[in-house]
């Protein structure tokens, strides 16, 4: 595991479960993983909300000063889902190692200009979608699934890029009955599982020789 290799280099992984049902749903996965790094449980999808994330897994690199140096991107740290996504984790892990070694000098650290471009969210619909999703999750948790569904649908409509809003809502329902679709149907509609995850946009490695696979 990448954490074992890098943890002595002033590096931490903060892994956050986006699960409306909290420990009930995320707990078994955490127990099975025997984590040595920090895993947190986020019933309200707070991290996705404040970082504008639309899917899992999404990774963000944060430097020693608490500054974002690479924003939201698909972040596979192992090949558990490679058959589904078609994405090999190696290029991402390679980039991560480069940053841990070189810090600001790493080619994978983004310029402030590009960061600002990527981080800007000007769409009021995206911000409102998060509120509709939050309301839906609250209603679901207080035993009102049928009242929650219109709010989940509204969140999905306002922010169609968010897979989180679709997948979490489907998981709390009979998706076919309540949404007339399933996750796999939606993946097929988007062009299939191999385009469902957009690979991280990594520049070529400037120092390929000094890395062990």
């Amino acid at each position, binding site marked *: 595991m990448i954490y074992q290799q890098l943890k002595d*280099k*002033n*590096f*931490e*992984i*903060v*892994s*956050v*479960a*986006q*699960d409306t049902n909290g*420990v009930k*749903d*995320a707990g078994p996965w*955490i127990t099975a993983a025997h984590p040595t790094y*920090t*895993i*947190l*449980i986020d019933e309200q999808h*707070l*991290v*996705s*909300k*404040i*970082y504008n*994330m639309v899917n*899992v*897994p999404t*990774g*963000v*690199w*944060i*430097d*020693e*000063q*608490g*500054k*974002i140096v690479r924003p939201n991107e698909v*972040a596979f*740290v192992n090949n558990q889902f490679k058959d589904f996504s078609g994405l090999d984790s190696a290029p991402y892990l390679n980039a991560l190692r480069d940053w841990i070694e070189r810090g600001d000098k790493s080619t994978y650290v983004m310029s*402030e200009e590009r960061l*600002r471009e990527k*981080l800007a*969210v000007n769409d009021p619909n995206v*911000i409102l979608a*998060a*509120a*509709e999703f*939050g*309301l839906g999750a*609250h*209603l679901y948790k207080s035993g*009102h699934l049928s*009242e929650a569904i219109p709010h989940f649908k*509204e969140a999905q409509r306002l922010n169609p890029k968010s897979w*989180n809003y679709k*997948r*979490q809502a*489907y*998981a709390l329902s009979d998706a076919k009955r309540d949404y007339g679709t399933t996750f796999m149907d939606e993946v097929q509609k988007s062009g299939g599982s191999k385009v469902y995850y957009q690979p991280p946009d990594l520049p070529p490695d400037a120092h390929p020789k000094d890395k062990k696979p």
Partner: protein
Amino acid sequence: MMTWRFSTGAFLLFLLMARVPAQGKQIRATLLYDGQTTEISTADEDAGQLWITTADLKRATRFELKPQGVCRDELCFPLPKSRQSEFVRKSAGKSWFNLMAFAQLVHQPVAHDEALSTWYFGLRSDQRQNLSSLEAPNFTLADIEGTPHSLSDFRGKKILLITWASW
């Protein structure tokens, strides 16, 4: 020309509505604010506005009405002087505050479920990513043992923040 007339008319109507502290419907309300749920026994719903007492405001949001504005700890939002009546009114010996007008002032989205009389207040502008500093927004969440951790606890280290889910 038509557009100008229409918008002027709408604006005048808006001013008129805002200036008359009409009593709306007395309701019970559930408020979700900054992750906290609060039951309000008496709220006043009036033409899409939601008035609660300043005591309930403090209980539900921890914001308080102060001479300098609507404040919580170091955070203060001044209320526009000419529009005070849109935000604050006195009635039945109590001071009432319009949470919907405040949400608009601080660019906060609101989702509402009418049947269950529930309002969800989303992220204010001060809670969203700060583009000028590129600072990673902080958060505090518990691990499986219930122990809280904040992102800021790891300041001084490089961090890979990564989300996942069981679904």
